[in-house]
C-alpha cells in the first residue's frame, strides 16, 4: 500500500513539475514562481507593455477573459465591508457564435458592523441573481449567443432589486455598487456610489475612468467650486449623494453606460480603498507590467496597504485575451 501511495505521489510530483516547467517556459505565473518573475519571451514589438497583453499564442492560452481578484481588510479597519463577485463563462464555445461572458461586481458597504458587510453582500446577491435569471441564463442554458431581451431595463431592475434587498437585510446600512457585464467586446457598466471601473489600453497607455464618483465633493469639483487637488484631499470626500440603501428610491438610480473594449485591453474594478490612496499613474504601471491579472490585483492591494491602508481594499482585474482561432494563421 505504501508502495502504491508513494508511486502515486511520485507520479503526481512529476506531473506538477512538468506543469510548472511548462508554465514557466511560457511565462505564465504558477503557484510556485514569484509573481514578479519576468518571463523569458520577448514582448511583441509595438505592444508597449507586459505579459498580459501578449498574443495568446505566445502563452498558449485559450481563455478570453483572464481574471484576477484580491481583497484585504486594510491596515486600519477591523473588519471587511467590501464584497466582490467575478464570474465568467464562454457561451457556444468553439463555434462561430462563441461568446465570452463575464459579470464583475464590487460593492463597498457602509454603516458599521452588521450593516455594511450585509448591505454589500445583499446588493451583489440580488443584482447578480437578477442579471443571471433574466439575461445570462437564457443565453447559457438556451445555448444562444444573443441576449433574449432589452438589456438596459434588466440592469435597472437588477439595481432596484439590490436596493430592496439592502433595505430588507441591512436597514440603516448602505453600499456602493459598480458592476460590469462583459459580453465579448461590449461592456455594460452599471454604477452607483464611489467605487470605480477603469479601462486600460496598453497601446495608448491610457487609463480611462468609466464611472463618475457620486460624491458631493466630485460634484463640487465638476461645478468648479473645488480643484481636483482640493477634492482629493478634502476630509469629507467620501460623502455620497447616491448609493443603495440610503436616501430615497428616487436617488438609488444607477448610471448605465455602454463601452467597448478590444482584445489586449484591461478592465479594473476597485473600491475607494484602492483609488483613494494609490494614484492613477501607479495603477497604470501595475497593469502595464504585471505578469497576470492575479499578480496585478495582489500588487495593487499591497500598494494600498503600503500607503496606509485606511479602508477595505477590493480589486478585480480582467485582461481581454485575443482568442486562438481554430484555423491556423
Amino acid at each position, binding site marked *: 500500500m505504501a508502495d502504491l501511495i508513494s508511486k502515486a505521489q511520485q507520479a503526481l510530483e512529476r506531473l506538477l513539475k512538468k506543469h510548472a516547467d511548462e508554465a514557466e517556459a511560457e511565462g505564465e505565473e504558477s503557484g510556485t514562481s514569484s509573481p514578479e518573475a519576468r518571463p523569458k519571451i520577448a514582448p511583441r514589438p509595438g505592444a508597449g507593455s507586459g505579459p498580459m497583453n501578449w498574443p495568446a499564442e505566445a502563452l498558449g492560452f485559450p481563455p478570453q477573459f483572464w481574471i484576477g481578484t484580491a481583497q484585504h481588510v486594510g491596515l486600519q479597519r477591523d473588519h471587511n465591508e467590501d464584497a466582490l463577485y467575478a464570474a465568467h463563462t464562454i457561451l457556444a464555445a468553439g463555434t462561430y457564435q462563441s461568446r465570452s461572458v463575464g459579470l464583475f461586481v464590487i460593492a463597498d458597504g*457602509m*454603516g*458599521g458592523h452588521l450593516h455594511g458587510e450585509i448591505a454589500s453582500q445583499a446588493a451583489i446577491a440580488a443584482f447578480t441573481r437578477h442579471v443571471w435569471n433574466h439575461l445570462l441564463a437564457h443565453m447559457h442554458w438556451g445555448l444562444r449567443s*444573443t*441576449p433574449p*431581451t*432589452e*438589456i*438596459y*431595463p434588466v440592469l*435597472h431592475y437588477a439595481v432596484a432589486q439590490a436596493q430592496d434587498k439592502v433595505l430588507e437585510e441591512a*436597514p*440603516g446600512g*448602505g453600499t456602493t455598487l459598480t458592476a460590469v457585464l462583459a*459580453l*465579448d*467586446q*461590449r461592456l455594460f457598466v452599471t454604477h452607483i456610489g464611489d467605487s470605480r471601473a477603469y479601462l486600460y489600453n496598453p497601446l495608448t497607455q491610457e487609463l480611462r475612468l468609466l464611472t463618475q464618483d457620486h460624491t*458631493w*465633493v466630485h*460634484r*463640487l469639483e*465638476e*461645478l468648479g*467650486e473645488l480643484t481636483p487637488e482640493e477634492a482629493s484631499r478634502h476630509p*469629507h470626500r*467620501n*460623502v*455620497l*449623494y*447616491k*448609493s443603495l440603501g*440610503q*436616501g*430615497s428610491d*428616487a*436617488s438609488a*438610480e444607477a448610471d*448605465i453606460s*455602454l463601452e*467597448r473594449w478590444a482584445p489586449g485591453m484591461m478592465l479594473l474594478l476597485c473600491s475607494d480603498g484602492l483609488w483613494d490612496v494609490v494614484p492613477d499613474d501607479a495603477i497604470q504601471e501595475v497593469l502595464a507590467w504585471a505578469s497576470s491579472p492575479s499578480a496585478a490585483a495582489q500588487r495593487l492591494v499591497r500598494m494600498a496597504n503600503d500607503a496606509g491602508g485606511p479602508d477595505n481594499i477590493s480589486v478585480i482585474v480582467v485582461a481581454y485575451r485575443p482568442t486562438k482561432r481554430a484555423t491556423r494563421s
Partner: protein
Amino acid sequence: MSTVYLARDLHFPRIERLVAVKEMTITNPRLKDHVLRAFEREAHLLAQLAHPAIPAVYDYFSAGDRAYLVLEYIRGHTLDQLVRSTPGFLPVDKVVRWAIALADVLHYLHTHATRPIIFRDVKPSNVMITPQEQVKLIDFGIARIFMPEQKGTMIGTEGYAPPEQYRGVLSPLIDIYALGATLHHVLTKKDPRKEPPFSFHERPIRQYNPEVPPALERIIYKALAYKPEDRYQSAAEMKAALEAFLQHGHAGSGVADALPPETQAMPPADAANEATAAWDATMAVEPTFAGEPTQVMDASGDADATAAMPWTPDATQSMPPDADATAAMPEGTRLMGRDAPRARRPAARPAAQEVRPAWIFETEDEIRSSARVVGDTVLIGSYDYNLYALDARDGELRWKFPTRGGVVSQPATDGRLVFFGSEDQHIYALRLRDATLVWKIPTGGAVYSSPWYAERILFVGSDDGYLYAIHTQRGQVLWRFAAGAPVRSSPIVVGHLVLFGSEDGDFFAVTPDGREKWRVRARRGIHCRPAVADGVVYFTSVDGHLYAVDLETGWVLVKHRFGRPSISWPVVTEGVVYVGAANGVFYALNTRRLKVQWEFQTGHQVNGGALVHGEAVYFGATDQFVYSLHRRSGQLRWKFRTRGAITGTPVRNERGSLLYIGAFDGRLYALPLT
C-alpha cells in the same frame, strides 16, 4: 422605520375624535435608552410649538422597542402626491400662496424662543395641503433619531439640500435653499433627486413651465444661490419677497376657486391611493391662468423676425385665426404623465400666425415625401408622377421629370446625379443640371424607399422584397439582399453597415458585400429611416415602439412604447431622440433610457421626421400643420397651416434661412426658418 396609523382617541368616547399615531421602531437595541431619551426631548420640543402649519402633539409614549407619538390628524395630500398625480402643472398662484405659508412657518421655527429650530428636511413629501388649502409641515425629523447619520454616508435630504449641508453645517439658510428646491420641483415637475446635485440652474423653470413669471423665477433662484450669503438671509425676507410678488408681480385676477370640500376622511396612509381620484375631481374645475397669455413667439422676441416675405401671387393661402385651428383634441405641452387623464386646458391664446411662406410651389397631386436640397436646388417628388427641381431661393421651376408612377421617395444625390425611385417600379438616375436620364433600373415592385448614396453605391429598397446595391457610375446592380418582405423603409449606411427595415418587422444590418450581419425582429413593419448616434441605432415600428439597438451586435438595448404605430423617422441630437407616432404625439426622449423629456400633442398623426435647427425643432403632422417647438422644453413657437396632411420631413437650405415641406395639398412650402 415609522408607520402612521389613524386612530380614535378613546378619551372622548362619545364622539369620534380622530388622531394620527406615529409608531417608530428602534432598530439598534443597544442604543435603545439613548434613542428613547432623545425621542422624549423631541416630543417635548414639538409640544411647545404652536403654529397653524405645525400639527399639534397630543401625547407620547413608548412600549418595548417602539415609541409612539400621538399627533393631530391632517387630511389632505402631500405636495409630492399632488405633483405626481396632477396632469400638467399646479397653478402658480396656489404654489406661491403655499410658499408664503412655508416661509412663514420656517420663520417661526428659526426664531423660536427657547431654541431656534432648523427643519432640515423641507421637501414636497413633508408638506401637506389640506382640502382648505392650508399648508402643514409634517415629519419633524423625529425620525432622524431613529436613523442616525453615519460617517461616510449620505447626509441630509438628497436633492433638496444645499452644498454646505454635506459638511454638517447647520444654519437656517439650509431651509431656505430647500424651500427653493421644493418650489423648483413643484413648478417644473423635475425631481431633483434624479438629477446631479445643485444642478437647478441647468433646468430653468420657465423653460419647462412658461406660466411662471420671470419675477417668481428670480425669487426661487435667489433662494437656490450656491453660496449661502447670496440667498435670502432669513425666511422672513423670502416671505416678504413672495408677498410683494403676489401683490404686484401678477396682472389680473382669476385665481382658482377653493377645492370642493372632501366628503370622507382619509387615513394618511391611504392618501396616495386617493390622490388621483380626488384631484381628478379638482381638475375638472378648469384652472384659469392669471398672468400673461401663452407666448407664441419665444421670449427673445423672434416675432419680429418673421417680417412678411414676398410670396407667389397665386398662393391662395389665408391665415385662419387659431380659434378654429384648435381641433377638438386637447393640445399643448405636457411633461410626463402621458397615461394620466388629460386636463382640458382652455384653448391656448390665439397664436398670431406671423409665419408667411417665402414661396409655394404647386404640383398636381399629393406630396408625401421629403425634399432634398443640393446647392441652390430643391428636389421634390410628387404623386403626380414627376420629380421636380426648383430654385431654392424663389421656387422657380428648373425642370421636371415624368415617371409612370407616384414619386414618394426622397431623392439622393452625389452632387452631379440625382437618384430616386418611383411607384412605376424603377430606380432612376438623372443629371442634376438638366434632368437627362443617365440610367434606370427596373425592380419587381413599387419603390417607396428613399435611396442612400455612399461612396458610389446607391442603396434602396423595393416592394419586391429586396434591398438593392447599385453601382451609380455603371448603373448596375451589384447585389441585392432578400429581406423576405417589401422594403419601404429608407436605408442608411453607417460604418460599413447598411441599416434598414422591412414590412415584416425585420430590421437588418447588412455588410457592404450583401451579407446579413444581424437582424432584430420587431412585431410589425418598419417604414422609417433609422438614425444612428454613439453606436446606437434608433428606429420605429408599426408595432408601436421605438427601438434602440447596439450597432455592432444588434442587441436591443431598450425600447420605448408609444402604444400606437409609428413610421416616423427618429432624429437624434445632443442626447435627445425626437420622434412622432400615430397617436399624434411628438416626443423628445433621452437617449440613455428612452425616457420622455417632454411630449407635444398635435391634432392627428405625426408620421414624418423632424428637423432640428438651433434651439428649435420642426415637423409636420397629418392635421395639416407644420409645427415649430422649442427643442428643450417642447413649448410651441409657431405653427403654420397648410391645406393637406403632412407626412414628410422638413429639410433646410444650405444657409439655414428656409425650410421646405410638402403636403397632401400638392404644394411644397418654403417657410422662413425662425
